């Protein structure tokens, strides 16, 4: 129990942050038209690529002679970057199409 309370105490800002973010996430998505669900999913997909930062941190912390960690970390940064770059570029391509709509009326 003490351990649990200490943990809460130590991480209270993070817990506040987490709870608030959960509500922000819910609020942001709840009123979005179905048209945008796919790009939104793709955009969210790119944002969780922020996990890349974790990979950069572990790779930075790895010992110089710990080749296993260096290799795994490099792989982590590589796939994390794939997530970020691929995610944002794919989303942009989807949204590019929405921009082109020629006012109202359809036919060119």
């Amino acid at each position: 129990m003490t351990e649990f309370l200490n943990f809460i105490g130590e991480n209270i800002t993070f817990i506040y942050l987490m709870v608030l973010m959960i509500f922000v996430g819910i609020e942001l998505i709840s009123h979005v038209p179905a048209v945008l669900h796919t790009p939104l999913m793709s955009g969210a997909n790119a944002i969780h690529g922020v996990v890349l930062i974790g990979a950069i941190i572990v790779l930075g912390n790895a010992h110089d002679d710990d080749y296993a960690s260096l290799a795994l970390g490099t792989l982590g940064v590589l796939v994390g970057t794939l997530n970020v770059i691929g995610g944002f570029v794919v989303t942009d391509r989807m949204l590019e199409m929405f921009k082109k709509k020629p006012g109202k009326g359809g036919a060119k």
Partner: protein
Amino acid sequence: MNHLREIAYLIGSISFVLGLKMMGRPDSARKGNAVAAFGMTVAVVGTLFLGPEGFRVIPHLEWILSAILAGTVVGFIMAKRVQMTAMPEMVSLFNGMGGLCAALISVIEWREIITRGEAATITTLHYLPVIAGLIIGTVSFVGSMVAWGKLNGRLGDFHFKGQQFLNLLFVGAILAASTLNLLDGGASGISPWFYGVIGLSVAYGLLFVFPIGGADMPVVISLLNSFTGVAAACGGFLYHNNVMLMGGVLVGSAGTILTVVMCQAMNRSLVNVLIGMVGQGASGASSSSKGGSVREVQVTDVAIMMKYASKVVIVPGYGLAVAQAQHICHELESVLESEGVSVKYAIHPVAGRMPGHMNVLLAESNVSYDKLVEMEHINPEFSTTDTVLVVGANDVVNPAAKTDPASPIFGMPILDVDQSKQIVVLKRSMKAGYAGIDNELFFNPKCGMLFGDAKDSLQKLVNEIKAL
């Protein structure tokens, strides 16, 4: 200069929220994506060059930069080259990469903890983000790879009796192995239990996604998307890194809500999607057994039907995407409109392989927004519609969803195309839809079938209408 990095992370976090918010509106969506990408860049650069005490270069910069460079080039090329139709599987693939990244972080972190000899003294609550990141990241990675394989047709559905029970068993086993790994204390290096957790998570990822098929794939991708968000948030907890925590939790919660909204669009609960096993073989009775015969129609007939109609509704489905027929579909619409026919598109929320898939596709071919009508608004209009043209859609117009309680898609709202005067279905063959079930609609006397590739058929149709 002490807190410069925190400021970089703050900018990153704010731009994620702002970006996601802007992505929720059609006119600002593209800018929103750019804003989020900008925030990501600031956060990454901050991690590379800013320490707790201001400017510093992160150790192993050469490793990091070469990996980032390689990832950027490969990711950029893949994302640029992919066909619009293959977008859903691409999203799934990138999502899997994020999951793998989270899992790798946990593996390295655990090795470090063992090396430092802290494994015996680590508190449960500090252990939690490490192991949760590993489990969720691995499940998300493996699950996304399966979803990717299924969407591009390399993998089929696979399920067996008692699988749901087995899945629960796996969850229990993963938790048990995680606990045993903690208790092991790591005195003699990495415990076999650690590998056990990885192995079990891989198996669970496979079992979790393999049986889910049919129209439910988008829901699974969305769910795995939020899993990866949670895995990223675990990393944020681990390193007390605000931007990871915020970004991860944001996607975790937004993704979960998006998943629920998608389920609601199909009038089903999430649990039902996950254990409902749409597309189960049992209902796959052979097409002839339903009796009745299908009526095949010719292009000329359809052309006449459409040209002299006053109102036509087009129902696009995955077949349209596969055949790349969106442009010719738009041309058909223009030709009909110039003949004074009113044309609308009926968009089922889960038509295609992702929600909004059809909107994206048709937007690509310049179909204007106001012609894309969502299900609840178009359904009352079918009774006044002369001709419905179903282009490569199947499950979303299957009346079994209303009439047959034994059907795996029972309860899913469908487009009421049978209310219209005539129905024409463009289809390659009598093959069942993605859910693997028969469609009674095809045996409806009002329904005519025009067999062939959707793009081909539409092209012929356009030529025919112009020639009339």
